[in-house]
């Protein structure tokens, strides 16, 4: 039933999505791409030029060295009657092949230094985004002077069924997220990058930004993108089991679209804040909780609470037991299992709703409920 509906939706949305992606330029690796992408930032282009230039110098030296070598291999072989000459040691030659490479390196060092200084020029940023690496997702927090920060998590969107080869893989397999970072075009954006647990590394090749996300440190990086589009990257530092499954998507939009997006987000946050103070009826809770469950829990616990990667919710001892224990599992997860701590990902309203929903769905007719304030208090300890 449910799958049927989803497929229909996909069929209907397909052409629309294709149209959209034809209009919005989508970047990311090309099929069988062999070289670095010049990217869409001034710094990226400088890095690309530097890369090509040094590759060129190496190629020229290589052709020289291998040329001499293959000349000898072809012409100075014993089987052709070559007689070995016995020359060796020539101070002149040896000075030459020490000094000339040194001079070439000096020449290389100049553009390398200036490009590096440019990469490090974090001044005059027009906005700041705090990027935090988690095992195994990214959190983006838009820092706002008024204290009204917008923040959200960005998770891999590719379903397990594609990863485990049950369904055909989509075009952006492993490079798609549920909620991308959104930034305005032609704006100097500074990233403040840190890690929550282990070291990760935030990398978007088209922006030429790669910086390690280290617990206890805040690293800085910046970008100023000059083309609207969707840019894709991945975590670049081994961070445990699902290191290969925490992509990055940056959606670069016009300044108008950006402020629209931001105010939408802020309104959302304000609405949640308002809701936090309210008390809900069981029906309201179940309705909201069902939506949250389908978005965040269904993948592992099943459409009918029958379980899968996660344990069954229907008839579970925890779900039908002490309500505080149940809430605790939702907030803090079960360490060492796929059951992650959702406390940082769901707001208190959604958390209260989903826990209530689980207790009153799939035949678990507990009749009790959790209110947002309970979640808040539980988190405070």
């Amino acid at each position: 039933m449910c799958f049927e509906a989803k497929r229909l939706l996909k069929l209907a949305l397909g052409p629309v999505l294709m149209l959209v992606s034809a209009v919005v330029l989508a970047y990311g690796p090309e099929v069988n791409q062999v070289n670095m992408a010049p990217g869409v930032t001034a710094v990226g282009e400088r890095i690309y030029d530097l890369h090509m230039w040094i590759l060129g110098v190496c190629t020229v030296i290589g052709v020289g060295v291998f040329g001499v070598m293959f000349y000898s291999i072809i012409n100075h072989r014993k089987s052709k009657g070559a007689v070995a000459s016995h020359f060796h040691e020539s101070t002149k030659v040896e000075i030459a092949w020490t000094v000339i490479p040194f001079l070439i390196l000096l020449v290389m060092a100049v553009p390398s230094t200036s490009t590096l200084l440019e990469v490090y020029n974090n001044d005059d940023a027009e906005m700041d985004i705090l990027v935090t690496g988690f095992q195994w997702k990214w959190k983006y927090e838009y820092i706002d002077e008024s204290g009204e920060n917008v923040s959200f998590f960005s998770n891999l969107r590719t379903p397990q069924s594609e990863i485990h080869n049950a369904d055909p893989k989509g075009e952006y397999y492993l490079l798609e997220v549920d909620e991308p970072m959104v930034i305005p075009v032609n704006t100097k954006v500074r990233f403040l990058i840190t890690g929550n647990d282990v070291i990760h590394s935030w990398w978007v090749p088209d922006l030429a930004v790669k910086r390690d996300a280290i617990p206890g440190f805040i690293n800085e990086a910046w970008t100023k993108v000059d083309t609207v589009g969707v840019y894709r990257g991945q975590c670049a530092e081994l961070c445990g089991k699902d290191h290969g499954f925490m992509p990055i998507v940056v959606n670069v939009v016009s300044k108008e679209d950006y402020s629209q997006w931001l105010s939408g987000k802020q309104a959302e946050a304000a609405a949640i804040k308002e809701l936090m103070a309210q008390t809900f009826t069981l029906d309201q809770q179940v309705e909201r909780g069902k939506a949250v469950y389908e978005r965040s829990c269904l993948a592992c616990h099943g459409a009918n609470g029958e379980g899968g990667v996660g344990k069954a919710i229907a008839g579970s001892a925890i779900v039908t037991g002490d309500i505080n224990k149940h809430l605790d599992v939702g907030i803090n997860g079960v360490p060492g299992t796929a059951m992650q701590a959702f406390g940082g990902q769901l707001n208190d309203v959604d958390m209260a709703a989903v826990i209530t929903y689980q207790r009153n769905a799939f035949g678990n007719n507990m009749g009790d409920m959790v209110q947002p304030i309970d979640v808040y208090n539980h988190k405070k300890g």
Partner: protein
Amino acid sequence: MGDHHHGPAKGLSRWLFTTNHKDIGTMYLWFSFSMFMLGGTFAMIIRAELFQPGLQLVEPAFFNQMTTLHGLIMVFGAIMPSFVGLANWLIPMMIGAPDMALPRMNNWSFWILPPTFLLLASTLFMEGGAPAAGWTFYAPLSTTYAAPSVTFFIFSVHVLGLSSIMGSINIIATVMNMRAPGMTYMKMPLFVWTWLITAFLLVAVMPVLAGAVTMMLMDVHFGTSFFSAAGGGDPVLFQHVFWFFGHPEVYIIILPAFGVVSQIIPAFSRKPLFGYDSMVYATASIAFLSFIVWAHHMYTVGMPVAGELFFMYATMLIAVPTGVKVFNWVTTMWRGSLSFETPMLFCIGFLVLFTIGGFTGLMLAIAPSDFQYHDTYFVVAHFHYVMVAGAVFSMSAAIYFWLPKWCGRMYNETMGKTHFWISFIGFNLAFFPQHFVGLAGMPRRIPDYALQFTDFNMMSSIGAFIYGLSQVLFLYNVIATIVAGKPVSDPKVWDGAEGLEWTIPTPAPYHTFETPPKIDPAHAHS
């Protein structure tokens, strides 16, 4: 000590209690080859999983254990012990010494290795699995977030560090004290020189590694927070300490290979090495520079820009002495009288591919570009060009070159050449496309990848299987040679070979140079 003129003892006790440098060398070589096969098996598992996008054979957690163990076993179990084996066999024979200076320690430094690697491999069967934080095991992934087996891993690293230090002290003591009269330093064959310098590097940096893993041990078990930010520690400190060991380590791996190539290329060019003195100085400068470039592995951790610049300039400088070496080898071939037996083929393969690895090294040295290369398959390609096509190719060359001397039998040349060509083709098919996917944006150490990278990964896997298979041919050829190769008895197995080891009978008797040879003062090095 009994009578030296007897042959070896019989049975197992010969190998357990031996203090003979040739026996110990042989054991090191077989041990390292078995580790090469084990690490190779892990590599095949990795490449099989990466053959297509999607997860087919293994789960991500196990995949990470495979990459970690593959790296650790190849570096510490295969490459390093193989060169120690070569040193054991050759250094006494090259400097006219009857044995190593400290034969009993020699026995120990070998025999603590097999149990250590058995322990390391057994972590695969422990709860939570083997270490999975990569061969560079960055904290806190390798401490707070590691499986319990990390304790056994730490113990293994301590013991194999001990083994390396004992081996190095032995080599230093032998080279300094046991050279035949007249064998001055500047007359020593280059293989001896490169090993002497390598041994100093080892003695200097192995204790640093031991320090790093000891701090890990304290963090895991004794509540310290060296590397844990939550307790006021510093995860980046781990990387500094690790790479202070790690960069010299890569030269520990490659310097003896330079030595091997510097012996073999002149032999098959029938012409002395072009610039012996400058080769010695280049080796020494590389060793010195290797201590001040470590943070080029850490350009993205957020060092101050002055630090980045320093490490960039210092790293670029390494290209100078490395270039001197390559130019020297090529000039040695120039106007020689070349022939292309298997050892020479492997040396030429080394020369071409190592040079390519040096070029990518220079590219990686450029800090701003490295922001795009770092932790991608481009780095994986780089270090396999220098480690496999560098160290492993030179090791293959060495075996083909000296095996007839060791066992008095000639290997099968056709099979040897076939081994070379299959290796060469397989290696390049496996690793050249990795430059492409790396530049296109494929991170390293991932069990699954975006569809855009599929074709090159498939090529890479096929190449890796070919390369892996060619090693089976190598094993067969070596065994066939030892058992039934055509006997050779000329002391100088190769007409162009120079050096003391070619003056003793073939096969090399169990004891050699019990009375020091006379060194012809006019006859410079090798």
